């Protein structure tokens, strides 16, 4: 059992146990906070696939988060109002259907954005992904049908196989299960032939090409899967807050997701979880200390970058070892 495996298992268990305990002690708010951590960790896990494994620095992942959120939100809205959708579709309140819609929508978005953006590299890639996210953002603000900048209120929580999803703990467990699945997928991909080729592309694209593999195809596939996972997180976020708005497409959110990944440890399996958890907890706690808590958060982040290379997981489990 490598040190990293132990750290990972511990983190995963902690993330499960803390809200369970909180629910027992009658602290539903902690459960909601933990759900937020799980959902943002899921979004960051998606990014980690593209960023950590594939070396693609996407500053536009909020686009997928928002697309997933709006896909779910629009369907839920139509289910409530009963209005019809094009292509004879109707709204739905069932989580599984909403997740599928979010996955498809964000997958398509990632396909289009990825196909165009991956023709560039380096900082140009960063900027073009940002540009696409901004386009989605301004579009959402100006689209009055679904609230524009005011956003869309969804008054119900969607349903899952007869479980009472309004109960914070139940909803948490659903999100946690999805996160665990995504982690499993991430770990499997990293060790698969696809994953190894992808990491090779990150380290030395020319060599990979010389071996007859096309980096573009690999990267695009990884990018699409990455976008889909983040899109699913967006759908869950819409459900958590019972609200979607263009703020989910804002570049600040893209930046925050990157922060989670780097804070936790890039390319490490549980990096996104560690990063998201630390960030949310700091946000929550520091807010009580001072009105200017964001400055404190900034200083803490600075400290982590300068002195704790490899992020939290790097701190706890040492350098990445290839098993």
């Amino acid at each position: 059992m490598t040190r990293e495996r132990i750290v990972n298992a511990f983190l995963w268990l902690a993330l499960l146990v803390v809200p369970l305990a909180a629910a027992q002690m009658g602290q539903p708010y902690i459960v909601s906070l933990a759900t937020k951590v799980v959902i943002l960790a899921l979004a960051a896990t998606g990014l980690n696939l593209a960023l950590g494994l594939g070396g693609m620095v996407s500053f536009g992942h909020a686009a997928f988060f928002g697309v997933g959120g709006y896909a779910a939100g629009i369907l839920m809205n139509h289910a409530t109002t009963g209005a019809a959708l094009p292509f004879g579709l109707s709204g739905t309140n069932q989580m599984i259907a909403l997740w599928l819609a979010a996955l498809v929508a964000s997958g398509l978005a990632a396909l289009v954005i990825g196909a165009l953006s991956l023709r560039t590299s380096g900082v140009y890639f960063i900027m073009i992904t940002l540009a696409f996210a901004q386009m989605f953002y301004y579009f959402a603000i100006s689209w009055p049908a679904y609230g524009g900048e005011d956003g869309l209120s969804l008054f119900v929580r969607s349903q899952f196989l007869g479980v009472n999803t309004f109960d914070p703990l139940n909803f948490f467990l659903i999100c946690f299960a999805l996160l665990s699945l995504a982690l499993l997928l991430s770990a499997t991909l990293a060790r698969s032939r696809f994953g190894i080729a992808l990491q090779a592309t990150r380290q030395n694209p020319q060599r990979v090409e010389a071996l007859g593999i096309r980096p573009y195809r690999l990267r695009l596939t990884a990018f699409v899967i990455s976008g889909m996972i983040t899109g699913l997180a967006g759908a869950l976020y819409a459900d958590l807050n019972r609200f979607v708005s263009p703020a989910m497409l804002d570049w600040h959110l893209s930046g925050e997701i990157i922060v989670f990944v780097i804070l936790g440890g890039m390319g490490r399996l549980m990096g996104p979880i560690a990063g998201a958890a630390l960030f949310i907890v700091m946000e929550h706690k520091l807010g009580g200390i001072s009105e200017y808590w964001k400055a404190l958060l900034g200083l803490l982040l600075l400290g982590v970058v300068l002195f704790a290379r490899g992020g939290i997981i790097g701190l706890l489990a040492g350098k990445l070892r290839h098993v």
Partner: protein
Amino acid sequence: MSAMLLIEQALNGLQLGVMLFLMAAGLTLVFGVMGLINLAHGSLYMVGAFACAVVAAHTGSYLLGLAAALAAAAAAGALVEIVVIRRLYDRDHLDQVLATFALILVFSEGTRYLFGSLPLYLNVPAALSGPVMLPGGIAYPAFRLAIIAIGLAVALGLFWLIARTRLGIRIRAGESDRQMIAALGVDIRRLYTIVFALGAALAGLAGALVGTLQSVEVGMGEPVLILAFVVIVIGGIGSIKGALVGAILVGVTDTMGRFLLPQIFATFMDPSRATGVGSALASMLIYILMAVVLILRPQGLFGARA
């Protein structure tokens, strides 16, 4: 729609472009020479604006305010470089993004702590207020003409600096091969601090000039930061000429787009829908422009081929 209006809008586009150039020039220098993505550039812009507002209010002199803006921004830039940025040169772009993102938070809240959350007063000096009559009967604000003039002067100054001075030679050499010039005995650390401070001063000047026209408040640098990145990407990273061309292109496109698109749509749509759709498209326009440029020329208009 008259020719006068069109010319006035073109001038506005030029002025916006010049303002963007001041921001972008610093950013592209820092990235080109030091390979560093600096998200805190917008904060340095804000520092310049605040310094100008405070000094101008205290002394009553706008020129002193401008000087204070340059000095304060350059000093802030040098300080940040020595304390933080210096440790990030051999790191990943991502670490730089994260560290400079953290700096934005520190600067914003720090400014709010020092000056409060309300916007500060900074107005056009009496000598430059009011419109000037241009040939053709166009009344154009004098201050905006001054900005165009200042910006073009700075551009000329930068070209001269890069092409004709020793510092410029070192900067150009540093862009090509960092290790080599270090091996040749150039003090890299000092060069980097100077370049960073220069970029910061440019941003501070832009902040002061723009703050005079708009509002001086915390967070004013962020929307401009994004635009500046768009500009340097379109122009090509590391190229001052690219920054100038890119900035003017973006400025004119944005201004003319916001002006013309709703009118174009109004010809075949009802007015309220036309304004809605036109405005929406206008906001997305510069990003569409950037995406198109990158797809056709992935390294930007004047960027070095990878």
